[in-house]
């Protein structure tokens, strides 16, 4: 078996202008009365992609998924799947299957009949159904539970039945609506990797809805960050994290320190920003910014150094402060450092060496500093 990495490293159909999208949302709007759940949204998803819709609750991500499944009709705009316009096609005639957040298992049927249900609707011969069901049970490791009813299963087992049922018909696209929300943390992490393996193994397109950024980062090839019915950024997890296109995305994904200020100079791919707190920052950036424009610099906590001595490049990209809070997490330590103007900067450092006594303690005067490629300059 090939490892995931060998396949994934070269997988980037979205970067290739010649590749045709498998699913296309074209200016899709969905209104519920006065409320606009999805707002003029356009989005392309490619074959075999593991695509995540990420956003806070009420951002329209579930509505988008339900429109793809056929449970909601767009108020305007088009959804194209594999060259076919989905308008007017009822859910029972769409080549997509969905795994529901509540699992939605049929309570009066056994595990076996649940999985066979979709196949029966297609009029598949009995022998073929039995074979496919056995195959699906094996895939999700539930062979022993074939005759049980859903209420005789644990949460994790129910989740597997739901997965097997939605995969049994070999849909072109599998839609997953918060599939791991009801599982505990450890089981959730295991299942994330299982889902990724399964998706590669079966060669399907997965579209997953989640509010858990770690889940999206772990599993997805690309993530669409949504807010108020709009897509703010679509990119790979690394791009989303390292090169967010807006303050919203920078703030939504992971921890971040944001320094507001005005552009002093912008030339040769470097931008100098005078921040409100008086910290002069120089950052590598290809953004076209004019002098005097408002801008913000976003820097992740792990890219900020904490030292007792002033760094050589001080006062540029450096500030003096006092350790305000220390959070020891075992693998790393998070510092909250209060700068002179009262701004609190978050910095985290990996505990690469075993040291019971940290040289940095509460109330200590320290310097925080960062390199010229540590952060992202965002237009305000």
């Amino acid at each position, binding site marked *: 078996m090939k490892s995931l990495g060998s396949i994934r490293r070269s997988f980037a159909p979205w970067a290739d202008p010649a590749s045709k999208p498998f699913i296309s949302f074209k200016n899709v709007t969905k209104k519920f009365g006065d409320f606009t759940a999805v707002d003029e949204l356009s989005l392309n998803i490619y074959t075999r992609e593991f695509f995540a819709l990420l956003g806070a609750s009420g951002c329209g991500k579930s509505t988008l998924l339900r429109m793809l499944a056929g*449970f909601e009709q767009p108020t305007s705009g088009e959804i194209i799947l594999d060259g076919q316009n989905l308008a007017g096609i009822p859910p*029972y005639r769409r080549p997509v299957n*969905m795994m*529901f957040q*509540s699992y*939605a298992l049929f309570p*009066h049927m056994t595990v076996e009949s649940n999985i066979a249900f979709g196949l029966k609707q297609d009029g598949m011969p009995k022998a073929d159904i039995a074979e496919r069901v056995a195959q699906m049970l094996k895939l999700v490791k539930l062979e022993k539970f074939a005759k049980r009813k859903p209420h005789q299963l644990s949460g994790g087992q129910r989740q597997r039945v739901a997965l097997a*049922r939605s995969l049994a018909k070999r849909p072109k696209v599998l839609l997953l609506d918060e599939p791991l929300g009801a599982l505990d943390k450890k089981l959730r992490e295991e299942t994330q990797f299982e889902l990724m393996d399964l998706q590669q193994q079966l060669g399907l397109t997965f579209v997953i809805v989640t509010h858990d950024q770690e889940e999206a980062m772990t599993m997805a090839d690309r993530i669409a960050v949504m807010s108020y019915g709009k897509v703010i950024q679509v990119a790979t997890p690394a791009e989303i994290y390292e090169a967010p296109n807006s303050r919203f995305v920078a703030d939504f994904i992971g921890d971040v320190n944001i320094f507001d200020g005005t552009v002093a100079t912008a030339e040769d791919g470097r931008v100098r920003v005078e921040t409100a707190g008086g910290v002069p920052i120089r950052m590598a950036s290809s953004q076209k910014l004019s002098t005097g424009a408002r801008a913000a610099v976003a820097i992740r906590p792990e890219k900020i150094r904490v030292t007792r001595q002033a760094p050589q490049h001080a006062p540029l990209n450096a500030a003096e402060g006092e350790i305000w809070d220390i959070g020891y997490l075992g693998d790393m330590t998070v510092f909250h450092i209060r700068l002179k103007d009262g701004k609190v900067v978050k910095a985290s450092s990996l505990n690469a060496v075993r040291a019971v006594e940290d040289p940095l303690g509460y109330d200590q005067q320290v310097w925080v500093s960062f390199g010229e490629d540590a952060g992202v300059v965002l237009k305000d």
Partner: protein
Amino acid sequence: MAKWSRFNIVSVILGFGFLYLPIVLLVIFSFNESKLVTVWAGFSTRWYAQLWHNQSLLDAAWVTIRVALLSATCATVLGTLAALALVRYTRFRGRVLFSGMVYAPLVMPEVITGLSLLLLFVAVGLDRGFWTITLAHITFTMCFVAVVVQSRLLSFDQSIEEAALDLGATPVRTFFAITLPVIAPAVFSGWVLAFTLSLDDLVISSFTTGPGATTLPMKIYSQVRLGVTPEINAICTILIGVVAFGVLVASIVTKRRELQRERDERAAFAAIG
């Protein structure tokens, strides 16, 4: 455990006495040897044996059972559909009015229901008899079914219907393969309720009946006007038995399902732990 105070004991005895003393008396006197209803003359089942020779009583019983079976079945279909419409289509025009109208017969005096139905049947020129009684019973028992089924549908997870649609089942198939089996216990209790209500209805039947269609309660009522006979006691005892049995079966069915589910859930959790 809470102690039984004297007050509690007295109130329980009074309460149950009020409810069951008349019934108990009736049942006891149905086994009375004497022809005089109020004088005990020893145990006997002769009145039950005599019932089998009273053709008019048997005829009335047969009419009653036919009406009850037919009207309960029709009322269950209509009531279930009404409940579905009320729970599912929350946005149609006039929903509040419609739901109010479905429930009105619950509180409407029977005399008024009976009279208005009689006027309707006369107005449309329908010959009164078996069919008019059945129609009238469908009308007034339907709302009871609707109430029972509606309360079940409110706690129904609609995503299982969406899952069925998603897996390729048409809406009609989804209803018969998924929705109906899941709400079946509620539909069944609705049917039993409708059946027993129809079985012992007197007022509405009296208004809507015609020649040749006499139900058992009507027969009993008309005979009692000529004096209570031990035979009447016997037939009433049987009626009580049938109704009590129906209610008992319905409650046992629901109770057992619940117990089974609890046991299964415990087993599932034990298997994880």
